[in-house]
Structures are given as C-alpha cells and as structure tokens.
C-alpha cells in the first residue's frame, strides 16, 4: 500500500513539502491536504495591497495544480484535533483522516492587544488574504492610516500604504522602531529616513483604547495627544496556531519541538514553518524562526523525508529584509547577541550602516542598511548572508573588516566562501524549477 501523507496547512511549508514529495516520488504516494484557506503567499500581499499585482498573482497553487499533483484536498477546513497514537486527524466538521505520516504546518495568526476598541470596524490586521482585501477596501488617497506596531510586518506594507496616497502615522510602544530586526543605531537611521520621507513616527507610546468617532477611529494613549484615523492597522505581532494540538501529547515549547529531520516527539508527525521550534543554524539552539525562508526549507526537508529520503536539516538562519522608501534594511543570524564582539560602520551621508558580529574569526550575524539604488548594498546583503551561513574563518580579513566594514567583497572571495558554499544543497541534490500551475503563470 502506498504511503499516506497528510499535510496540514497550505502555506509555504505545506506547499513546499507537497512539491518535494512529488519531485521525489513522481506521484506514487497518497497526499491529503487540509487547509483553512486556498494556497497563497502572504509574502506578496503587500504588492497586492499597492495594486502592482492582481489578486490571481498571490495564489501558489490552484485546484488544477493540486489535482495534477494528485493531492486530495480539504480546503476551507480546519484541523481540530490530532490523535498521534491512532494516526488520525479530526477536522472541524467532524471528519477524520488517517495517515501514515503528517506535517503540521498551520502557521501563525495576527494578534492584537486586548484593549477596548481593538475589534472595532476600521481596525484591521494585515496577515491573511481576507484581511488584505479589507484593508484595500478601506484605504483611499488622502486617508490617514495609523499603524500600531513598528516591526517587520508593519514595515512590509509601509511602501504600499504610501503609494496609495495615504498619510501614515506609526505608533510603537517600544522606545524605538524595529526592535526585533535591527539594533538601536540602525533603528535611528531608519527612523530619520522615514521622517524625511513624510512618515510620522511616535515611539514609546502606549495605546489604551480605540473609539468610533463619526466614521473615523480615535486612538487614545496613556499620555499625550489622541490620533484620528480613517483606518487602523494592528501590526502587533503574530502567534503560532498550536492551540488545537493541546492534549495531543506532541511536545511543545514556543513551538513544536523538532529534531534535525523536523520530526516532533511523535516520529511520524513532522512540523515546519512558524509552528516548528527547530535548530538555529548559527547557535544550534532550538528556536521558532517565523520567516518565509525557514518555512520553505522546513517544507522541503520534510517532503524529502516523507518520501523516504534521509535528509538532516542544517538549521535555519534568522534573516529579514525590507525596503522602505528605497532604503534597504536587512539583518542576519545572531545580530543581537549582546555578548558577541561587534564592528560597526556608519556613513550618515549615505544613510548606510553595517554591524558585523563575531565568534572568533567567524561572522555570526550582521545588520546592513543602505539605499536600494546602491548596487553594493544588494551585493553585500547576499555576501554577508553567505559568510554567516557558511561560517568560514575570516582570519586576517577580520581585522580588515574592523577597519573597513563596508569592504565585504574581497573578504568574501579570498576566504574561499564560494568554495565552501558550492557543494551545499538543502536536499543533497540540485534543486528543480518550481512547478507552477499554468493558470497561475498566466
């Protein structure tokens, strides 16, 4: 009897697992997909918001693609409970599905602070496609948008809001913006850049309530003035969807604890993406990296293992990049390790900043900020990722980078980083072109 694989979640991890199983087995196994929503990419929703792409562009698989991959689907259904001993999943409509192995990839949801008015009409999250549609319907040229939260998610839609002709105010409870993506000096640079580009930023302000005010929303804070908004976006964090696994016996901490094959405490139950707490490639410690590249790599490794391969995952690299008003802001690895030796470089006239964090002569983390029009910024983003990822020893180049933190390329090349990277593949074989549905490509 062919293996019966069950994929729970049609986000990045789930879809990559399905694609990889089919790359490996050519259709021999049974695959069942349970997903609350149609498969689409959250990563591209900001470009749907600013109307640079049509809604059809966000879908990562259509019914026809899934049929072509011979996937049985339960779309619009939620996983309700897992019986890990009995190898069955119960759906919210009471149906049960038997499996030989399964992948839990139920992702995250946006959360809001529990303050009065957080659920008023005109107060939105921007996480799902449905929420994106609501925000699109609510923004018009000249609208005043108040974004609550100044983290990565908020910043991914900043350009879109401005390009729609809206006025934007960002309010953040922390004393500075991007607290989990860049250090304080980097944040100051980005803050100044945004103010110069017409974004109003209020940091260190605690939102206490939101009230309806004649078709608008009034935001009240612990101290200071109130704000009147046409539309409020709550970018106040995300939380992994794990509640439904309570009582399953699956071991969880911040996420589902997984080994280097992405197996949970139940060996035939894998976890991937935002719900998985797996190895950090730099520190080796278990961590939830709720980012797209980790979900993609988790999904592919799980898919290969489900298909009978024996693929160990090297661990995920924390990384983020966002462009705001043509300024690139990126960070990698252990950029916030307070004990790491760190070199910094600042070129205020070019709004450029670098931070390089070290363990001995190996780079363990980096922050890079620079104008998107600077070719070097983009090239260095990649090379710094390569240096952190490969962990090559930089020897005398470390001293060079202390003096010249912007001169990354010769250090990258002369440290034989390319040689170290070339044999590396996630699945132990060359990657294949992602098969996309014809309807989506068109």
């Amino acid at each position, binding site marked *: 009897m062919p293996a019966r694989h069950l994929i729970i979640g049609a986000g990045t991890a789930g879809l990559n697992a399905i694609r990889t199983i089919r790359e490996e087995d050519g259709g021999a196994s049974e695959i069942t997909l349970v997903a609350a929503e149609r498969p689409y990419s959250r*990563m591209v929703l900001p470009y749907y918001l600013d109307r640079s792409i049509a809604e059809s562009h966000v879908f*990562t698989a259509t019914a026809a693609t899934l049929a072509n991959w011979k996937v049985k689907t339960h779309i619009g259904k939620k996983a309700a409970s897992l019986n890990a001993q009995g190898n069955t999943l119960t759906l919210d409509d009471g149906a049960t599905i038997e499996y030989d192995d399964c992948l839990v990839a139920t992702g995250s949801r946006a959360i809001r602070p529990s303050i009065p008015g957080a659920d008023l009409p005109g107060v939105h999250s921007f996480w799902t496609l449905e929420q994106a549609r609501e925000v699109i319907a609510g923004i018009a040229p000249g609208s005043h948008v108040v974004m609550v939260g100044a983290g990565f998610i908020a910043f991914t839609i900043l350009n879109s809001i401005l390009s729609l002709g809206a006025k934007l105010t960002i309010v953040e409870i922390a004393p500075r913006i991007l607290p989990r993506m860049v250090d304080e000096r980097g944040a100051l640079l980005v803050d100044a850049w945004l103010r110069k580009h017409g974004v109003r930023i209020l940091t260190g302000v605690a939102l206490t309530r939101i009230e309806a005010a004649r078709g608008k929303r009034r935001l009240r804070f612990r101290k200071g003035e109130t704000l009147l908004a046409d539309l409020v976006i709550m970018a106040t964090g995300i939380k992994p969807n794990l509640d439904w696994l309570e009582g399953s016996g699956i071991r969880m901490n911040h996420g589902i604890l997984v080994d280097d094959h992405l197996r949970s405490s139940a060996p035939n139950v894998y976890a991937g993406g935002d719900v998985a707490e797996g190895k950090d490639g730099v520190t080796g410690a278990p961590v939830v990296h709720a980012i797209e590249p980790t979900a993609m790599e988790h999904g592919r490794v799980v898919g290969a293992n489900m298909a009978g391969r024996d693929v160990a995952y090297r661990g995920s690299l924390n990384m983020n990049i966002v462009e705001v008003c043509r300024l690139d802001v990126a960070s990698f690895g252990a950029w916030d390790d307070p004990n790491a030796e760190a070199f910094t470089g600042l070129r205020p006239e070019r709004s450029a900043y670098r931070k390089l964090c070290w363990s001995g002569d190996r780079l363990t983390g980096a922050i890079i900020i620079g104008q998107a029009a600077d070719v070097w910024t983009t090239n260095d983003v990649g*090379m710094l990722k390569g240096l952190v990822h490969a962990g090559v020893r930089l020897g005398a180049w470390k001293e060079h980078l202390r003096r010249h933190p912007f001169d990354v390329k010769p250090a990258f090349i002369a440290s034989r980083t390319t040689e170290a*990277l070339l044999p590396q593949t996630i699945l132990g074989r060359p*990657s294949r072109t*992602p098969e996309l549905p014809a309807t989506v490509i068109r």
Partner: protein
Amino acid sequence: MKVLKIVPQKCTGCLRCELACSYMQTGSFQPAKSVIRVSPYEGHTSYAPYTCTQCAEGWCMTACPVGAITITPAGAKDVVDDRCVGCKLCTIACPYGTIFYDPDTHKAFKCNLCGGAPACAEACPTAAIVYEEAETCDWLADFAVERSTRLLAVGGP
C-alpha cells in the same frame, strides 16, 4: 553544462564585460545594471570579474515565494519578470551576492547566461571569461588570496 569560467589572471579591468552585459540585459550601456562585476585588487593593479555560478541549490529560486525564478534550457536560473513582485527575498537568500534589484522596475535580476550566448564572454578580449563545458567552481579564491596579501599586511585598500 556550459558555465562561465573565469580566469582572473587574464582580466585587464577593461570593463567591456560590464558594458556588454548591461546592454544585453537592459538595452543600455550602463555598468551599474551589469550582473557581472569587475573588482580591483592590489590597489587597481589587477582585476577580476565576479558573477553568478548558477549553483546547484539555486537559493534564489527556492526562496522565491511565487516561483518567479526558473531554470532555463541553458541551465541558468532566470527571473521571470511578469512573476517577480520585487519582495527581495532572493537577495537575502543568495549567499553569493549575485542577485540584483532594479529600484526603477521593482524587479530582481541576475545572470541568465544570455540564453546560452553570454555577452560578457563574447566581449572579453583576453579570454578571462570563457563559456565552456566545465564543472562550476570557485574561480577567484586562489587569485584573491594571492592578490590581497599586501592589502592585509598594510591594512588598507
């Protein structure tokens, strides 16, 4: 497959490859839009071009959330403009720094081997860039090590 083999000892720093590349890729002679980049060594006494190796993992391709990077018949990873939304994930996924981003078009771009007839190799007058059947490898490391000893000793570019 045929790859761009780099012989850095032969590079004179004439930048013809950058001109040819940018013309082929964008229709204008604009080295800033070239996806092969020549770097100086030893205080501009020697040079070497650097570009995508079309690596086996294809970090850019697997990272793309909308499948906008595919493998061409020539074996190059190539950005499909109509699919690319400009999210820049490929720029942080590529560990070689060989993905580029055009702020005017909001698209990523990279070496696509010009569909199997790379303009850089054709333009190179000294055969420092040749397009031939070979296993891709780290073409520059030995050269870069040798040509940077003095830089590291004196501590400045």
